């Protein structure tokens, strides 16, 4: 069974982001970048399925500028078998990414596509669902457990009320939640092995997908500074403040 894992290059979660002075975007100049954490969980899950003998090959794909190859190499160092870089300098929305991935799915014919549920930069939570719709594959989103069976996959999903398990016929799309697994570290020998693993590069333009963005970013602002809390003397004062200041009751 082949597994396709799309990964996104995103700002490292440890970096304190700053908004550009013109409010057009987050300042990424020379910022430390990494695999989006949810995507890293997707890679880990695919590699575990391979180690269990369920999967035979794990293919990692990333879309973006040349630097994305760093994240593909990281995924290869975590245990993926080969990489595909779809190169473009355009900034794409979820829909264009999903359409490009649809083409990759047609070419690669994976039995399972595992994606992060969302990326920590744009927080859209769309690509997996769009890909499922475009390809007609069933989807199991926000997975906290994945069990592959004969011709199907059982996905335990984290939903508001608790956990829901769905059974999808293969091929299928799964998006990962935080608790699915704890990704391993790229060991030094595997970092070296990753250098020798194949990494194909293709131009995004060659896929015949309309890459023009349908979403326009109007303004990017840092969240408002949190105000300090206050202590109240008694319940009466609390209720009073909830009524007059917070205006929630």
């Amino acid at each position: 069974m082949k597994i396709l894992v799309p990964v996104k290059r995103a700002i490292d979660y440890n970096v304190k982001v700053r908004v550009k002075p013109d409010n057009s975007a987050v300042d990424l100049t020379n910022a430390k970048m990494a695999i989006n954490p949810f995507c890293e969980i997707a890679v880990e899950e695919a590699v575990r399925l391979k180690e269990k003998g369920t999967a035979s090959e794990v293919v990692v794909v990333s879309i973006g500028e040349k630097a994305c190859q760093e994240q593909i190499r990281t995924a290869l160092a975590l245990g993926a078998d080969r990489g595909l870089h779809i190169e473009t300098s355009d900034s794409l929305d979820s829909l264009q990414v999903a359409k490009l991935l649809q083409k990759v799915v047609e070419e690669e014919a994976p039995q399972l596509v595992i994606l992060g549920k969302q990326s920590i930069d744009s927080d859209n939570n769309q690509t997996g669902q769009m890909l499922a719709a475009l390809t007609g594959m069933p989807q199991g989103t926000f997975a906290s457990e994945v069990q592959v069976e004969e011709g199907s996959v059982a996905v335990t999903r984290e939903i508001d009320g608790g956990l829901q398990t769905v059974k999808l016929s293969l091929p299928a799309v799964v998006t990962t939640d935080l608790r699915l697994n704890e990704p391993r570290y790229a060991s030094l020998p595997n970092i070296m092995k990753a250098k020798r693993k194949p990494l194909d590069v293709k131009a995004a333009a060659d896929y015949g997908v309309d890459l023009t963005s349908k979403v326009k970013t109007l303004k990017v602002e840092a969240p408002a500074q949190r105000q300090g809390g206050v202590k109240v003397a008694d319940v009466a004062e609390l209720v009073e403040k909830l009524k007059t200041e917070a205006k929630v009751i």
Partner: protein
Amino acid sequence: MTEPLIAPLELPFQLFDVQDTETLLQRQRFSEHSRETLDAVLDTAEKIATEHFATHNHKADQQEPTFDGQSVSMIPEVKAAFDAYCEAGFLAGRADFDAGGMQLPETIMTACSGYFMAANPSTAGYPFLTVAAANVIQTFASETLQQRFVPPMLTGRFTGTMALTEPHAGSSLADIRTRAVPAGDGTYRVKGSKLYISAGEHELSDNIVHLVLAKLPDAPSGVKGISLFVVPKFRLDAQGEPAERNDVALAGLIHKLGYRGTTSTALSFGDNDDCHGYLVGEPHQGLRYMFQMMNEARLGVGFGAAMIGYRGYRLSLAYAKDRLQGRPTGAGPDTPAVPIIEHGDVKRMLLAQKAYTEGAMALCFYAARLVDDVHSLPDSEEREQTRELLDLLTPVVKAWPSEFGVKANDLAIQVLGGAGYTREYPVEQCWRDNRLNPIHEGTNGIQALDLLGRKLWQANGAGLQVLQQRLQQDLAQMKGEVCQNLSAQVAPYLQQFAELMTTLQKDLRTSALPVHLTNAQCFMNIFSSLVVSWMWLRQAHGAERRLAQGADSEQHADFYQGKLQAAAYYIEWELPLVSRDFALLQQTNTTCHNMKTDWF
């Protein structure tokens, strides 16, 4: 989100702007690597250090290992961290590809160790000692010993120690009493006591390999009669598996000021006359073997001291930005309090910490690069020159960061005030942990003697000549305004240093020699301050170049401005302090020398 162990821009700046680490990749030994693999290795180090080491630094200090007469127990987090370190392959990071290693440059392995030292020095001690011991066996022992002990040490199945000190002999190893007698089958029976042996007993690995200094029955007296032995806790069977218990016993654990998570042990060898040992290399060469290792260990001590110092700096910096106290001069009592970082004297204390610890870091990376050059330069004459410079700098690399790392931690406590003096805040632990570093691997007093009495004159002063050439080459390249201004301030001290060298060259052949050796610390102060000024000029140069390129974000520009300011602090506030030392040496001051024991 946690505060990163090391500011994200610091290591890339030190490695790739101040040092040209990428040029190493053109050398045959490192040609398999690329900037990408180096970055990936550093990433893994940061992750493991952050997630497995930093998380129990405080707990390991509070709950130190205990001994119930049978075995040593410690908190389980230490084993989890040790295993993560081993599984990631760091133990074999420097080793040859053929030996299952990664052939990574020392510069990069040093940078990786920085994360672990900043996160948790006492847990990091176990793997670091193992690598050092494996390195000695790999370099000097017979092929049989190498095959039996090195591979399991490079995967962490076995750990290692250095058993040098004895209850009556620490700095003076010539006086050790541990004996090794040939057993007739090529092995030896070892008998004696060793003290302060770090990682001498624990349950982290299947076996512990002690490297023991001992004397053979026919040994010449003094340091020329010391041999080195491999003494495992468990003897190996034919398959190389730990089998029979060897006659090495834990006499007790030592209770230390800091570094509490690393067991410090008193070990008894041969209480039942059945302690098997295996000679490393030739008889009577033990100290030479050990010193080769210790020179590299001294770089590790200096860098560790720099990183613990740096950790304290970062912690006190975060506190100073957060702690509201006092108001600016002239502001009324009803105006809001300001973060203490806005007070001038707090800025001074933070700037001093920055100057000490980042200066020490730059010095250690410079030395690590020399180690790489000694191992990988194609030209043998250049290798030899590099070796001389490394030898000359080694006492400085050990002593200066360990002296000023502790000073930095002292200032960190001061920045936190009352909170800094409590065990609820982490800076007092930094200070206690770091306080070891001026003491072990050759006390700082011995480093000063080694520098003035030996290294300076070795090979007709070749090391100093190489240093002066390199310093002049660097100065010639520094065209930026800040560098020009700062190097002009350093120049008079270089002139005074040249004059001092003329005096010393004359005096050391006269009866003034013992007086100068008494005052060796003065020379260490001068020499190390000049070397560190040079290291700060190199950082200022890197920062000015980046600022001139102007391609960086505001955040980056702030970082480089900070480097320029710290360089100015070091050269304007710290370097001038050596005027006293110049005066004492030039006048051959005898106050300490002439003091009599009975006058105390």
